[in-house]
C-alpha cells in the first residue's frame, strides 16, 4: 500500500528554479540560528518542542512505572510530586502550547495566505529565542532538583511552604508566555494584512480561522498569567501576603487569576488541533467542508466562550453556589461550538470517497477521542458530578483525552500531512499507519482505565493507592508502553524519509490550498510570484483549473 491511491495533481514541477528551496538556499549553523525565514524558524521550533515532548514523556513514564504497584516503592512521595509537576509544566508550556501554532502554523500559515513571510520576521525569530530562554530555566530547574507545586502553582503552598525551585520555574513560564504572545500577535497581523490578492476572509482555509481564534486567545489570556506569576514571584521573594491567607491575602483570587489564563489555554491547545483536522478532512475526502461558515465561526465562538468558564475549576474552592451555577451553565455552552465542528467533519465524511492515508487515520482518532474528552468535560462541568470526581483520575483521563487524544493526534496528523511539503519527501506509509494504530490503541489502553479508576475514587497526585485499583493501573501502564512505541516510531521513519523517502511533487495529496500550489519544499520566498486567488475555499475543480492555467502560462 502506498500513497498512490490519490493522483498527483495534474501539473508538473516547473523549471530548474524550483530546485532552489528554503533548505538549500543557504548552509551553515548561523544561516539557521539567525534566519528570519518562517519556514526555518518552524524547523527550529519543531526540534525544540520534540526534545521537550520526550523529556515530558520520560516523566510520565516514570510515574506510570511507580503506579504499577499500589505501594509507593519506586519513588518517595516528594520525588513523585516533582515528577507530575515537571510532566505538566514541560508538556503544557513547552510542548502543547507552541507545538501546532509555532511549528505547523509558522510553516504553513504564510504560505496559505500567499505571503512571503509573517508580518514581523525578526519578531518571529525573537519569539523562538524567548522560548529557548524560558525553556533553559525549565531545564535548569529539572537538573538542579525540580519543583513540586503541580503545574498550577497553587498558593500559599507555592509561595510560603515549598522548598523547591518555584521562583525559577515561574520565571521560565513567564518568559515563555511572551514567546507565545508575540507569535499570536505576528499571526494576527499577518492574517489581517498579508493575504494574497483575491483571498477574502471567507476564502481562507479553515486552518487560518482556527489559528486566528487561537491567536486572539493567546494575546488576551497570556498577559493575565504573566501578571499573576509576577504577583506570585513578589509574594515568594518578599514573603508578603498577596495570596497567603495567614498574611491577609486571598488564595482563591490566585485561582481565579490563574484559571482566567489557564482555562482559555486549553483552547490555545485544542483550537490549532481543530485547524489541522479541518484541512485533513477536506484533503482526504476531496470535498468542501460541510458548513464552512459554521466551522469558521465556531472557532471564534470557542475563543469567546472559553474566556467565560474559568471558575469551573473552583467549584469546591469556596466560591458561592450562585456563581458556581452560572459557570456550570456557561461551561455547557462552550460544548455547542465544539459539537458543531465534530458534526460538520462527520457530515463531510458522509458519502465521501475517503482515502485512508495516515493523516486521515489520526483524524478519525481525533474525532472519536475528542468527542469522549468533550463529553466527559460536560460531566465535569455539571456541578454535582464535579464535586464527586474532583481531583480524581477521572479528571486526569478527561483532559488527556483532549490534550493527548486531541491535540497530539492532530499534531501528528499535521506533521504527516505537511511532511512532503516541509521536507519534499514522502514518509513510508506502512510504518506510519502502524504507528498511528499503536498510538490509538496505546492511548486508549492508557487512559480509558483512568476514567474507571477515577470514578470509583482513586485520587490524582499520589504515588501509592489502594490495592483494589491495581488491575486498572497495570492496564494503564501497559498502554503507556505501547503509546511510547507509537511516539518513538515516527522519529525513526520520518528521520529515515529525510534521505530515503520518495520525492514528493508539489501536491502529493491532490489537495486544495495555496501551500499545494508551490513546489515541495517551497522556495525561500514561498512563491516565485505572488499568487492570485480565484477559487472559494476547498473548491477542487476551480483550484485545479486555476493551477492548470498557471501551468500553461
Amino acid at each position, binding site marked *: 500500500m502506498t500513497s498512490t491511491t490519490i493522483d498527483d495533481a495534474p501539473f508538473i514541477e516547473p523549471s530548474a528554479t524550483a530546485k532552489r528551496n528554503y533548505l538549500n538556499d543557504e548552509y551553515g549553523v548561523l544561516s539557521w540560528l539567525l534566519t528570519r525565514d518562517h519556514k526555518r524558524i518552524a524547523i527550529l521550533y519543531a526540534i525544540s518542542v520534540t526534545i521537550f515532548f520526550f523529556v515530558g514523556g520520560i516523566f510520565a513514564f516514570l510515574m506510570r512505572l511507580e503506579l504499577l504497584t499500589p505501594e509507593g516503592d519506586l519513588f518517595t512521595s516528594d520525588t513523585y510530586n516533582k515528577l507530575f509537576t515537571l510532566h505538566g509544566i514541560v508538556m503544557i508550556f513547552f510542548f502543547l502550547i507552541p507545538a501546532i501554532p509555532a511549528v505547523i502554523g509558522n510553516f504553513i500559515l504564510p504560505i496559505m495566505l500567499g*505571503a*512571503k*513571510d*509573517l*508580518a*514581523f*520576521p525578526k519578531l518571529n525569530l525573537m519569539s523562538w529565542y524567548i522560548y529557548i530562554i524560558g525553556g533553559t530555566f525549565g531545564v535548569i530547574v529539572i537538573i538542579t532538583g525540580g519543583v513540586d507545586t503541580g503545574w498550577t502553582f497553587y498558593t500559599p503552598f507555592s509561595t510560603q511552604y515549598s522548598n523547591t525551585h518555584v521562583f525559577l520555574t515561574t520565571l521560565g513560564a513567564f518568559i515563555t508566555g511572551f514567546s507565545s*504572545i508575540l507569535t499570536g*500577535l*505576528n499571526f*494576527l*497581523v*499577518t492574517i*489581517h*494584512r*498579508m*493575504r494574497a*490578492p*483575491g483571498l477574502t476572509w471567507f476564502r481562507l482555509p479553515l486552518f487560518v480561522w482556527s489559528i486566528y481564534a487561537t491567536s486572539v486567545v493567546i*494575546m*488576551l*489570556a*497570556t*498577559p*493575565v498569567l*504573566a*501578571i*499573576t506569576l*509576577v*504577583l506570585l514571584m*513578589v509574594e515568594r*521573594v*518578599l*514573603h*508578603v*501576603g*498577596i495570596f497567603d491567607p495567614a*498574611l*491577609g*491575602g*486571598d488564595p482563591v*483570587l490566585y485561582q481565579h*487569576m490563574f484559571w*482566567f489564563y489557564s482555562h482559555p489555554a486549553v483552547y490555545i491547545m485544542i483550537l490549532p488541533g481543530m485547524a489541522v483536522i479541518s484541512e485533513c478532512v477536506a484533503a482526504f475526502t476531496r470535498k468542501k467542508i460541510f458548513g464552512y461558515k459554521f466551522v469558521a465561526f465556531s472557532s471564534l465562538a470557542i475563543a469567546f466562550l472559553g474566556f467565560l468558564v474559568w471558575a469551573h475549576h473552583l467549584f469546591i474552592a469556596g466560591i458561592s453556589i450562585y456563581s458556581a451555577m452560572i459557570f456550570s451553565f456557561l461551561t455547557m455552552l462552550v460544548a455547542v461550538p465544539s459539537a458543531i465542528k465534530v458534526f460538520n467533519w462527520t457530515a463531510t465524511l458522509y458519502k465521501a470517497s475517503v482515502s485512508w492515508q495516515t493523516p486521515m487515520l489520526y483524524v478519525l482518532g481525533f474525532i472519536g477521542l475528542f468527542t469522549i474528552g468533550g463529553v466527559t468535560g460536560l460531566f465535569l462541568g455539571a456541578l454535582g458530578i464535579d464535586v464527586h470526581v474532583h481531583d480524581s483520575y477521572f479528571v486526569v483521563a478527561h483532559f488527556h483525552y483532549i490534550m493527548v487524544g486531541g491535540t497530539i493526534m492532530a499534531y501528528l496528523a499535521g506533521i504527516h500531512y505537511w511532511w512532503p511539503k516541509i521536507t519534499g519527501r514522502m514518509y513510508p506509509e506502512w510504518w506510519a499507519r502502524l504507528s498511528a494504530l499503536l498510538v490509538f490503541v496505546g492511548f486508549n489502553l492508557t487512559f480509558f482505565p483512568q476514567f474507571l479508576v477515577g470514578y470509583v475514587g482513586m485520587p490524582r497526585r499520589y504515588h501509592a493507592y489502594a490495592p483494589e485499583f491495581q488491575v486498572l493501573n497495570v492496564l494503564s501502564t501497559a498502554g503507556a508502553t505501547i503509546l511510547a512505541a507509537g511516539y518513538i516510531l515516527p522519529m525513526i521513519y520520518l528521520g529515515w524519509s529525510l534521505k530515503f523517502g520518495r520525492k514528493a511533487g508539489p501536491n502529493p495529496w491532490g489537495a486544495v490550498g495555496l501551500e499545494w500550489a508551490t513546489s515541495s519544499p517551497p522556495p525561500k*520566498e514561498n512563491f516565485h510570484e*505572488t499568487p492570485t486567488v480565484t477559487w472559494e475555499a476547498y473548491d477542487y475543480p476551480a483550484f485545479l483549473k486555476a493551477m492548470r492555467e498557471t501551468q500553461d502560462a
Partner: protein
Amino acid sequence: MRNPTLHELQHPGTSDDAHAHHHPFLQHHFEDLGQQHEASTLGMWFFVAQEILFFGGIFMAYSVYRHMYPEAWSAGAHHQNWKIGLFNTIVLIGSSLTMALAVWGAQGAKRKLTTVMLVLTLLLGMTFVGVKGFEYREHIHEGLFPGSHFTYVDHAHPELTRGVELFMVFYFTMTGLHALHMIIGAGLLIWFIKRAWRGDFGPEYYSPVEIMGLYWHFVDIVWIFLFPLLYLIH
C-alpha cells in the same frame, strides 16, 4: 485585487511600484510601504491590547483588596505625596505632547523638530523616573518597603499595619511595572533619536515614530489611572 490601504488613500502615489520598491526601509516581504505601515501599526495596537490585559490583572487584584481593606488602603494612600504625584503627572502629559509633535514632525520630514521633540520626550520621561526613584527612597526610609524591611507601624491603628503593607506591595509592583515600561520606552527613544537625526523619517516612512508614540501614550494612560488610585482616593 487588494483594496487600497488607508495610507495609500491618504498619500496617493506611495504604492507606486517603481517608487516604493526602491525605498531603503521597505522590507522584502511587503508589497509596498503602505502595507508595511498598516502592519506595524496594527501590530502595536495588538501589543497595546495585551498590555491592557497585563495591567488589567493587577488593577483587578488591587480592586479586590481595596474592597476588602478600605481603611488600610486609605491609610496607605496617606503615605503618598500627592504634590509630587501631580508634578509627575504633568511631566508625563508634557512628554505625551512632545511625542505627538515628534510624530507630526516625522510625517512632515522636519528632521530637526522631530529630533528635538524626541529628545524632550526622553528628558521628560527620565525626569518622571528620577522623581519616582526619589519617592521610592523616601518610602524605604519610612520603612514602607514590604517584606523584611517593613518596619512601619501605624500607631493610631496598629491593626491596619498588615493592610498598609499589602497596599505598599501593590504600590511598588504597579508603579514599578509602569516605570519598567518607561525605561524600555526610553531605550527605544534613544535609538529613534539617532534615526531621526540621520534623517530616516519622512512622509513615506514614519511608522517607527508613530508606533513609538502609540506605546508612549499607552504608558502615560496607565499612569493616569495609577495616580488617582494610589495617591488621591482616601
